[in-house]
């Protein structure tokens, strides 16, 4: 009789789990995914759930098309290398006369200048000429760098009444360290206002999440690529929201005479930043902020005054260059969306 009782119990569990959906999947009925190559990087956007289940696939597809158009729009404004972009037009004329700018340009100049000030120029939107000097993947002449440095610095940019002007013709804005995060913000806005309940956005490793997952607590799990072994994650962060940005020395670089020269430049030296970190990741509620701050901390360490940062609210994860140094993380202000790190 004992055997029968055990069987009956197992059967009850099996039927019960079937019936009440113990294993039921998330309401991921609407999964619609976009892959593209925009803004010089790979883009992946997945919509998992719409708030209105009627025609949700059609609605999600429509939003994906709008998201793609939005990305191309942002690219057409901020592409440094495209002579027809708004940025190029500004960079060639803002010295001789103030230039009126578009809404997105205005937003990003404002946020860019704010971040430049907050980080004392560790992040800086005025590095265009310097980045150009390094773009040929060889070390520029020291004299060329030195002659440029006096004209590098956000202090040379004035933005007033929707018009931007530069103090010198060699000043050029570059939004490489902030535009991807800004684009994540804009896509989030678009998807949320379009009725998306759950979505995941990845623009070249800058991540934005919307809503909840199917996990019990609804959180998202995002790995940080291990800078010391690129095929693995170093650590997994569990969040209920927010935007991730990572700056590291492994993503873009060239090697000359056995030395590695990465693409994150320090405005004080005019050279690739010498950092204690292999990578720095920021998680905050603002993608442009995360993007700019990860660059700033990678360059200058904790350039921050805790009072200022506590007002912003974010978490930071440091992965050190030294292999035997443990990963560290810090929280500033209100960053409830960081559920766990590790």
């Amino acid at each position, binding site marked *: 009789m004992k055997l029968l009782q055990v069987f009956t119990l197992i059967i009850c569990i099996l039927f019960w789990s079937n019936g009440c959906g113990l294993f039921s999947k998330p309401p991921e009925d609407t999964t619609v995914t976009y892959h593209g190559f925009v803004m010089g*990087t*790979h883009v992946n956007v997945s919509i998992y759930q719409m708030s209105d289940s009627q025609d949700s696939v059609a609605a999600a597809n429509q939003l994906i098309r709008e998201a793609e158009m939005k990305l191309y729009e942002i690219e057409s404004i901020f592409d440094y290398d495209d002579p027809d972009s708004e940025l190029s037009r500004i960079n060639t004329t803002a010295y001789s006369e103030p230039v009126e700018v578009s809404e997105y340009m205005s937003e990003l100049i404002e946020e860019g200048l704010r971040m430049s000030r907050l980080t004392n120029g560790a992040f800086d939107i005025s590095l265009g000429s310097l980045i150009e000097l390094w773009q040929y993947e060889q070390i520029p002449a020291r004299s060329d760098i030195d002659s440029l440095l006096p004209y590098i610095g956000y202090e040379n940019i004035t933005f007033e009444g929707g018009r931007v002007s530069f103090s010198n013709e060699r000043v050029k804005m570059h939004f490489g360290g902030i535009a991807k995060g800004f684009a994540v913000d804009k896509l989030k806005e678009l998807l949320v206002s379009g009725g998306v309940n759950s979505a995941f956005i990845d623009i070249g490793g800058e991540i934005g999440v919307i809503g909840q997952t199917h996990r019990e607590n609804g959180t998202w799990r995002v*790995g*940080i690529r291990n800078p010391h072994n690129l095929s693995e994650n170093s650590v997994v962060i569990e969040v209920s929201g927010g935007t991730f940005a990572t700056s590291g020395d492994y993503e873009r*670089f060239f090697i000359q005479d056995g030395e590695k020269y990465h693409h994150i430049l320090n405005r004080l030296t005019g050279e690739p930043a010498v950092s204690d970190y292999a990578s720095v990741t920021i998680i905050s509620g603002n993608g442009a902020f995360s993007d700019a701050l990860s660059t700033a901390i990678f360059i200058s360490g904790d350039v921050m005054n805790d009072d200022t940062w506590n007002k912003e609210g974010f978490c930071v994860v440091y992965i050190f260059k030294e292999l035997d140094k443990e990963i560290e993380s810090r929280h500033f202000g209100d960053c409830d969306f960081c559920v766990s790190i590790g």
Partner: protein
Amino acid sequence: MTKKSKAVISAIVIFALASASLIAHLWIIGIRFDEPVALIYRNGELLYEIELLQVSEPISYNIENVSKVEIRDGKIGISQANCRDQICVNMGFVNGVVPIICLPERIEIRVRNNDSDIDGVTY
């Protein structure tokens, strides 16, 4: 047949039915016992979709004459590339959610794995 053995047989039959129904249920709601699938993109366009575990012998794909993607031991990676930085080659071989990226040649390899407990990777 004794009363006991009848009970045992009917228990086994019901158990089998219940198990079958559970498997069918899982299948219908989408938890398939499926395998990792590698997706190779160039310029955002999907070029190949490969079930990694179906590949028994090492195999390579020539991606538009700019790089060679290889699959071996259930993992995928870029074994040769025209790009100058060779970062993609140094990324090694993966079978999970960490993507292999070549920015200069605009190649992206992702492994979709329904068993993965990670939604994405920041880098």
